[in-house]
């Protein structure tokens, strides 16, 4: 086994363990921590693929902003341990089935078409932040502007939602 493969399997195991732990943990803070582990592991995988910029953005935005927001809200609302009723425990079975079906479907598809998708790229292209910025500001400039509009709307929405009604 080569070094990249070892790193891949270590990070993949970390990610899967984190995701499973997200499901098994009872307290939302522990779930949030598990999700952070998944995100950091994914950032490691991006680095392994040579996508440095995406890896950094993944940690800065997901790890440093979005998940902090989650943790903040959990602390603010003082969310307690999750409670399950009998009915909701039953929901686990169909969920598991669905997961198995989905994973099987994807595995089958990948196995069928696996030969055609081979890792051909040289990592030099991928690590270029310059390339990404050129794409964002040339090829994808309209979607990019749209996302900035989306963010503006989100800011307004969050402000309106969080405002206390004056009584």
């Amino acid at each position, binding site marked *: 086994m080569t070094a990249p493969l070892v790193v891949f399997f270590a990070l993949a195991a970390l990610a*899967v363990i984190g995701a499973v732990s*997200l499901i098994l943990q009872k307290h939302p803070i522990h779930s949030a921590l598990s999700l952070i582990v998944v995100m950091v592991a994914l950032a490691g995988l991006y680095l392994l693929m040579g996508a440095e*910029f995406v890896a950094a953005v993944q940690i800065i935005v997901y790890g440093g902003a979005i998940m902090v927001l989650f943790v903040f809200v959990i602390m603010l609302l003082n969310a307690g341990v999750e409670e399950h009723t009998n009915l909701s425990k039953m929901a686990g079975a169909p969920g598991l089935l669905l997961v198995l079906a989905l994973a099987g479907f*994807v595995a089958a598809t990948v196995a069928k078409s696996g030969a055609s998708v081979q890792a051909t790229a040289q*990592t030099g292209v991928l690590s270029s932040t310059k*390339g990404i910025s050129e794409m964002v500001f040339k090829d994808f400039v309209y979607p990019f502007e749209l*996302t900035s509009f989306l963010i503006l709307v*989100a800011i307004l929405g969050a402000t309106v939602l969080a405002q206390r009604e004056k009584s």
Partner: protein
Amino acid sequence: MVPTNYYVILSAILFGLGVFAFIFKRNLITIFMSIELMLNAVNLAFVAFSQAFGRLDGQVFVLFVIVVAAAEAAVGLGIIILIARNRQTLNVERVDLLKL
């Protein structure tokens, strides 16, 4: 060099776990987190294919997904705070009335 298939299968596993968490968890915030998990799984596939084809489109898409996730988190958590304030609970099973 790690084969692209591995990344895609890992992405599928993570996405499946995300779907399962979405159905199984009962806390509103955790359910929201499982959506983030699914988005992350998709991002992994995007970057893997971007590497496989040697093009940067995939990575640009990932950036867009992250931006949308940030916007979604801001609004979604605002809604969750409102729900918690009005109904004093975060359990989705207790949030079953259209009107208080």
